[in-house]
């Protein structure tokens, strides 16, 4: 397989502040790769270094086999990028903004551009400053996608998008993947990565703690379940179920952690008179920080 992104011993520091430390990573052609981590973990620093927006303190990164600091323009020609936070020209309309970025790339397929605008439900006639956060994000997505790049680098792409538009975005990503394009997507939303990615890297405090297939990550996922009974709490019945751990009872409330399928718990709960059944998927941070504590070593 051809490696589209190769990161070798990459370290980036900002004076005395940590950016990323000794990152080694490869993303292959046609792969959808998720880059997960809590806020401040170093996701954006990594992406910005891949684009030569930041210069490595040590180590190096190659994209399409080109070292990022040597010929970034050749890399950019084939990349579509959506920053995590951005502002565009307040006085231009959305349409003018999209047109300008298309011109910077020497023009794009107008039909595809129009299709993206329609699918993301953008009104291109409004001034950029008048858009809501979600609509600004949509403009950024069109700018990143409109030239059909070989590599998409998306930094928290669904931030601010409503659920319907999120579905459209996932659809577009699936299409891009089906066309053989590579996707590098940073996120702190587990479900987003599950929906779109083949492999995932987890970064915490500037260091990679895990690189694996998404299927493996799923094993980390669990639910925090809370049942409120009308009568006695049957602790024993639930503690014995497969995947159930950390069972605690408090008055008429039973709390437990459920790994894997939740079906056995639902079946068991159906046998009792319940006032409430709450199942909560913990945040990614809770999930993988529970798994990879502060003393965790380097990537698996």
């Amino acid at each position, binding site marked *: 397989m051809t490696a589209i992104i190769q990161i070798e011993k990459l370290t980036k520091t900002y004076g005395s502040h940590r950016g990323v430390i000794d990152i080694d990573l490869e993303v292959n052609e046609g792969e959808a790769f998720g880059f997960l981590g809590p806020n401040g973990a170093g996701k954006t620093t990594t992406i*910005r270094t891949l*684009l*030569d*927006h*930041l*210069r490595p303190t040590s180590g190096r990164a190659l994209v399409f086999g080109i070292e990022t600091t040597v010929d*970034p*323009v*050749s890399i*950019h*020609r084939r*990349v*579509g*990028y959506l*920053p995590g*936070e*951005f*502002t*565009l*020209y307040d*006085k*231009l309309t959305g349409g*003018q903004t999209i*047109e*300008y*970025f298309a*011109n*910077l*790339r*020497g023009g794009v397929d107008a039909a595809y551009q129009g299709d993206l605008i329609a699918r993301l439900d953008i009104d291109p006639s409004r001034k950029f400053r008048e858009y809501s956060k979600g609509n600004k994000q949509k403009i*950024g997505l069109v*700018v990143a996608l409109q030239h059909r790049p070989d590599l998409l*680098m998306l930094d928290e792409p669904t931030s601010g998008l409503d659920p319907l538009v999120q579905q459209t975005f996932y659809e577009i990503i699936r299409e891009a993947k089906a066309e053989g394009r590579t996707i590098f997507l940073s996120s702190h939303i587990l479900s987003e990565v599950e929906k779109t990615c083949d492999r995932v890297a987890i970064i915490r405090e500037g260091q990679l703690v895990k690189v694996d297939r998404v299927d493996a990550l799923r094993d980390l996922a669990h639910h925090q379940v809370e049942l409120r009974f009308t009568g006695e709490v049957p602790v024993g019945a639930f503690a014995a179920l497969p995947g159930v751990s950390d069972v605690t009872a408090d008055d008429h409330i039973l709390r437990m952690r459920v790994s894997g399928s939740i079906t056995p718990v639902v079946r068991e709960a159906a046998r009792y008179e319940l006032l409430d059944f709450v199942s909560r998927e913990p945040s990614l941070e809770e999930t993988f920080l529970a798994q990879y504590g502060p003393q965790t070593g380097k990537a698996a």
Partner: protein
Amino acid sequence: MASNIGRPAAAAPAASPVPLMQRVYGLGSIFAKTLRDSRRATILVGGVLGLMLIGIGYAIVSQFASAQSRQEMGDLIRSVPPILQGLAGKVVNVETLGGYLQYKYGTFFPIIASLWSILALSGTLAAEARRGSLEFVAAGPVTRRRIALEKLFGHVLVLTIACVAIFLSLVVVGTFGKLPGDAIPVVAAAGYAIWLGLLALVAGSVAFALAGFVGRGSAIGIAGTVMFAGFILNGYQAAIPQLAPLANLTWFGWTTNHIPLAGLYDWPSVVLTASLTVVLLAIGVEAFVRRDIGVTTSIPTPSLPHALVGLRGPTGRTFGHVLPTALAWGIGLGFFGLAIAGSGRSFVEQLGSSPDFQRLLSSIFPNVDIATVGGFLQLLFLDFGMILAGLAAATLVAGWASDETSGRLELLLAAPLGRMRWVVSGGGGIVAAIVVIMVLTVAGIGIGASITGGDIVTPMLGTLSLGLYALAMAGIGVAVGGVFGTGAAGPAVALLTVITWFDGIIAPALGLPDIVRELALTTHYGQPMLGVWDPAGIVASVVLAVGGVAVGAWGFQRRDLQG
């Protein structure tokens, strides 16, 4: 069934109270944070203006140490026709230390303080609303009126501190004088400091009242225009009586007879200015209380034609982005030039009635017919025009810099656009914008000069010296932006322009060697309005413009993108 609605929440652990000191200065209250945020500006304005007053005061008593030299200086000043007094103050008791200080320098200091007040009061609520932090502040357990008032009182207090520094400096200056009339009474020092503070505050209050309605940018533009227009109209109303009705609508006009350092007081005019200030500040506070947070009305401006929007590439985009700014500067400078050039006839007439002064000017500008529109513009337009051209360059550079400071450079440089090309294209866009400013300014000068009559080509060509200066300043700005970060680029150009301006004023007053004054690029263009060009200035400007862009491109290749 008992309801929980309205029932007090369970008692929380007692919170430790915010220390009093932190509520006064620091992060303990909105007022305290306003003081904290303003500390550098307060030191800069109060300290720098205060020290300048002391330095200038000392220089005056050193240079004019005898009663005879004072008398000669007074006679010379009185022989200058009103049109040439221009933006200096009224000629009252100029033989005394205080009188001369107020005449020569006193009118300029409120401009600096006013600019600070406009920037501070336009942004104290509006800028915070725009960046979203006000959402958090307003969501706290404090009423909107209190938020506005705490911010307002914070600014008033720091302005007062700066005025106290100026007051104390004047008291010190008063001890330098050894001649009769040189003493500066406490009431005179206080009168000047109060006047300066009020002039600053009223200008800021215009911005404060408007910012909630039209946003910070427009509020700064309107307040700045009102302030500068008032200053210029008042400065020239003695020479051009037709300006008097407009000048007397401004606070500069109202307080024109309040010259405390010269021993002349007009307290009712100060009270009138204070009253207007209170009304405007009350409008600003009430607007914030009653209106939606962050919702402003755009001042309708005509859209640019599609071809001028600049969507084809980075040069065009930079040009399109800064074009409205360039048009505003060009129109402003053009009208300024038109007004000055068009009043040349008055100048020639006044010069004819003052043969002594005519002889003095002839000795300064030998072989040049000063009684021409070119000579007139050289004396009256060019110096101030240079400052405006430098400030225009600062805003254009800041417009280019906003690609990075706003974060959109992330997307621009993710396109196949090299870093060097971005800097060079930006430089090209700024040059094109300076050309626009020059076309409009030259047109204004041309129209004005044609009203006066005589040679109009020479002054029109001479006006291009402003363009050369702007190009040089822009080059410096691009270099600073490329090497150190674009956030510093616009302020660096503005600061350099102001330092250059003060260098021209202060260096001679302090008796510093000529080389200090000649550090200012503005001293190296010759007398372009009279057709006398100094090649050194032209070459230096071109080198700074081209070299600055080259250095900027080189520097930007070597640093991280800010974000």
